[in-house]
C-alpha cells in the first residue's frame, strides 16, 4: 500500500513539475502601446464585458467594435458576463491559456488582479482624456508606478424619489440631510395606512450606502499606516456616520436587512417606498422593465412608478464612485490589438454614447458636458465630483467577497450587535484580511 502511495505521489509530482515549467516569466512585461496602426486581418479579439453593456449600451460596443474592425481588419467577439459569478469564471479561465484579451472588472475588483499579475501594463497617454481620468477608477489600475487598466465608465449614487408622493406632502428634493429626514418623516406619516410602506427603501447589506454615510461624518473604512492597513470603522467619526445610517434605516426602511441592493430598483417599482439610493440608471430600471428578463432584446414595459421618478444628489452624503475598468490580460497573444479596441471603446465618441445610456464618462473633463447633455444623469455627474472609493488595497476584494461589511450591517440593524461592537468586529476582520501575507 505504501509503495502505491509513493508511486502516485511521484506521478503527481512529475505532473506538477511539468505544469510549473509551463510559464515562469517574472520579468517586467513591456508596456503595451495603443498608438500606430496594427494589422489584425484574420484575427479575432475576445472581449469580456459585464452584462450592463449588453442591456444598456450595446450600440456603443457595436459601434466601437465596428470602428476597430475598420481600422485593423480584426473581428471582435464580445462575451457578456454576470456580476454574480464573473470572478470565479475569470480565475478559472486565467489559469488556462485560452484567455480573453480584454476583460472588464469593477474598479474595486481590479487591485487584486493587478497585484497578482493578471493584467499587462498600458500607456495612459495613448488614450483620450487620460489626463483627467476619474481618480476613483484610475486608482485601481496603479501599481508600482505603472498603469494596468483603462477607466471605462463610472456610476455615482444619487437619491431617487417619487415626485408624486413628495408633492403630496409638499416636499421637494431635499437640500440638506435634515430636510431629507424631515421629508421621510412626512411621507411615512402620509402613507401610514399601508403597512408595507417605508419612506426609504434601504436593504440592510447595502454597504456602499452605509459607507457613504460613514464618509459623510468624516469617517473612513481603512487607511494605510506604513506597510499595514488599519481598519477605521471603530473611530468616533465613523461610528457617528454608521449610527446616522442605522437610525435612518431602522426608522424609515421596510427593506429586508439581509438583502443587498442588487434588486432594489425592481422592489422599488412595486410602489412601497418613496425614496431609494441608487445609481442614476436605476431610475430607468425602476420605471421600465424588460418583458422577458432573459432576453436583452425584449420590449420594455412600464412599471407602477413609470413617469413618477426623479433624481437628486443625496445631500451631505458623498457618493461611492463605482464603475468599471478595462484590462489587457497578461496572457493575451494580441495585446496590441486589445489596446486598439480599448482605445476605440473609451474615446470621446464612445463616452458620448455611454452618457446617452445614463452612465458617467471616465474622466472629470467630460462630467460637465455629460450633465449638460443628459438631464437624467446630471445629479449623478454632480455627485461624482464629491465621491469616494474603497481602500485601494490588494486584498480589498477579499473583504468584499468575505461579506465583512454586509454581515456587520445586518448584525447591527437586527440588534445582534451594537454599532460599536459591529464596527470593532469589522475592523478586526478588515485588518486580518488586508494584511494577510
Amino acid at each position, binding site marked *: 500500500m505504501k509503495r502505491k502511495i509513493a508511486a*502516485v*505521489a511521484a506521478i*503527481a*509530482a512529475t*505532473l*506538477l*513539475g511539468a*505544469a*510549473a515549467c*509551463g*510559464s*515562469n516569466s*517574472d520579468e517586467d512585461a513591456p508596456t503595451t502601446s495603443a498608438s500606430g496602426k496594427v494589422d489584425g486581418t484574420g484575427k479575432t479579439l475576445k472581449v469580456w464585458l459585464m452584462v450592463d453593456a449588453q442591456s444598456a449600451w450595446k450600440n456603443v460596443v457595436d459601434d466601437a467594435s465596428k470602428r476597430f474592425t475598420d481600422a485593423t481588419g480584426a473581428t471582435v467577439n464580445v462575451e457578456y458576463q454576470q456580476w*454574480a*459569478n464573473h470572478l*470565479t469564471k475569470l*480565475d478559472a479561465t*486565467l*489559469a488556462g491559456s485560452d484567455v480573453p484579451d480584454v476583460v472588464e472588472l469593477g474598479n474595486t475588483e481590479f487591485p*487584486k*488582479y493587478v*497585484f*497578482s*499579475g*493578471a493584467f499587462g501594463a498600458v500607456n495612459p497617454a495613448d488614450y483620450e482624456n487620460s489626463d483627467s481620468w476619474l481618480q476613483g477608477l484610475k486608482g485601481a489600475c496603479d501599481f508600482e508606478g505603472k498603469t494596468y487598466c483603462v477607466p471605462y465608465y463610472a456610476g455615482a449614487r444619487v437619491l431617487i424619489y417619487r415626485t408624486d408622493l413628495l408633492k403630496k406632502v409638499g416636499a421637494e428634493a431635499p437640500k440638506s440631510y435634515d430636510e431629507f429626514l424631515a421629508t421621510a418623516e412626512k411621507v411615512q406619516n402620509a402613507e401610514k395606512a399601508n*403597512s*408595507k410602506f*417605508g419612506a426609504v427603501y434601504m436593504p440592510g*447589506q447595502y454597504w456602499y450606502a452605509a459607507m457613504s454615510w460613514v464618509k459623510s461624518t468624516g469617517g473612513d473604512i481603512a487607511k494605510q499606516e506604513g506597510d499595514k492597513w488599519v481598519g477605521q470603522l471603530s473611530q468616533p467619526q465613523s461610528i457617528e456616520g454608521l449610527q446616522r445610517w442605522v437610525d435612518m434605516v431602522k426608522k424609515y426602511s*421596510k*427593506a*429586508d*436587512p*439581509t*438583502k*443587498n441592493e*442588487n434588486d432594489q430598483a425592481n*422592489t422599488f417599482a*412595486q410602489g*412601497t417606498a418613496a425614496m431609494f439610493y441608487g445609481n442614476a440608471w436605476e431610475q430607468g430600471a425602476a420605471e421600465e422593465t424588460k418583458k422577458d428578463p432573459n432576453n436583452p432584446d425584449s420590449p420594455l414595459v412600464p412599471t407602477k412608478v413609470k413617469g413618477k421618478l426623479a433624481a437628486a444628489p443625496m445631500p451631505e452624503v458623498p457618493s461611492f464612485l463605482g464603475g468599471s475598468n478595462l484590462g489587457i490580460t*497578461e*496572457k493575451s497573444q494580441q495585446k496590441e490589438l486589445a489596446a486598439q479596441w480599448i482605445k476605440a471603446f473609451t474615446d470621446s465618441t464612445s463616452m458620448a454614447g455611454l452618457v446617452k445610456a445614463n452612465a458617467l464618462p471616465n474622466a472629470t473633463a467630460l462630467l460637465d458636458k455629460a450633465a449638460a447633455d443628459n438631464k437624467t444623469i446630471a445629479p449623478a455627474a454632480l455627485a461624482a465630483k464629491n465621491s469616494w472609493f474603497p481602500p485601494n488595497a490588494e486584498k480589498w476584494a*477579499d473583504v468584499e*467577497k*468575505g*461579506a465583512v461589511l*454586509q*454581515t456587520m450591517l*445586518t448584525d447591527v440593524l*437586527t440588534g445582534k450587535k451594537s454599532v460599536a461592537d459591529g464596527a470593532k468586529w469589522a475592523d478586526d476582520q478588515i485588518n486580518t*484580511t488586508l494584511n494577510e501575507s
Partner: protein
Amino acid sequence: MSVVDSPATRRPRDPGGPRQNRVPGHVAPRRRKRNSGLVPWALAVPALVLIAALLGYPLVRMLVLSFQNMRLRELISGRTPPWVGFDQYTRVLTDEVFWAVVGRTVAFTVVSVLISVIGGLSIALLMRRVTRGVRLFMVIAMMFVWALPQLVAAQIFRWMTDSDFGVVNYLIDKLPGVNYQNHSWFVNPWQGWSVITALVVWAGIPFLAITLNAGLTQVPKELLEAATVDGATPWQSLRNIILPILKPLITIVTTLSVIWNFGLFTQAWVLRDGHPEPQFQTLATYSYTQAFGQARYSLGSAIAVITVLLMLGVMIFYIRQMFRIGEVD
C-alpha cells in the same frame, strides 16, 4: 437489492462462511483457479484507470495543494506555489470560525436526517395502508419532487420566503392578528435554518419514502398476521417485526442522507443569494468561499481534506454497523 433481503432468506446461506461470492451448485474447474489472480485485475483495469483519473488525481492534487500556499498569483502565472507544510491545517484547526461551521454542519445533518428518515418512514408506512390509486398518486407526486433539480427547488423556496414578495409571508399575514409583511426569514438563524431544513427534508423525503416503501413490501404478511392474531398492537408490530426487517435498508438510506446533507451547498447558497452570512455557512460553502471567493485555494483544500476525514469517520462507523447487522441476524 440484496439489502432488502429479509434475514430469513439469508440464513440458510451459511452465514459464517467465507465472503467470496460462490455461485451455488457451480463446480469451479481447477485450471481456472490458477490464473484467477490476474484475470480479475485485468478486467478491472479500465475501471481502475477511470477511478484513478477522475478521483485519484484530483484527490492527490488537492492533498498536495493543501500543503502549499496557492493564491491567485500562482494560479494565473502557473508557478509552483510555495510549500508551507502543515500551516494551512494549523490555521484551519485553530480557527474558531471553522469549528463553529463544523458544529453547525453536524447539527444540521443530525436534525435534517432524523426528520427526513422519520418522515420518509411514516409516509412509506402510510403508503402501505392507502388504496392503490392513492398510492400511485403519492408515488407520482413524489417522483416530481424528486425530479426537480436542487437549484430550481432552492430558487422556488427563495421566492416563497422572500421578504418583499414571498407567498409565505403573504399567507401568514392573512392570519388574524399576525403582521408578517416584510418579515425577513434569514435575520434569525433558527428561522433561516428552518427554511433550509424544510427544503432539504422536502427534497429528501421522496427517495426515502419510495425506497422504504419498496422495503416494506418485503415484510412477510404472515408474520404481521400472526402477530395480530397473538394480540400485538400495531405499534408492537412496527417495533418488533417491521423495523428489525427494515433495519439494513434504513441504515443504508440514513447513511446516504447523512452523506448528502453533510455536504449541503446548493440550498444554503441559493437561499442566501450566493452570499451566505457566517451563521449560514456550512463546511461546503465555507470551503468554497475560502477557496474560490477569496482565492485561498490551499486553505480551501485543507478544509476539504478535513471534511473528507470527518466524513470518513462517519462512513467507517456506518459501514461497520452495517456489517454487524448482517452478521448478527
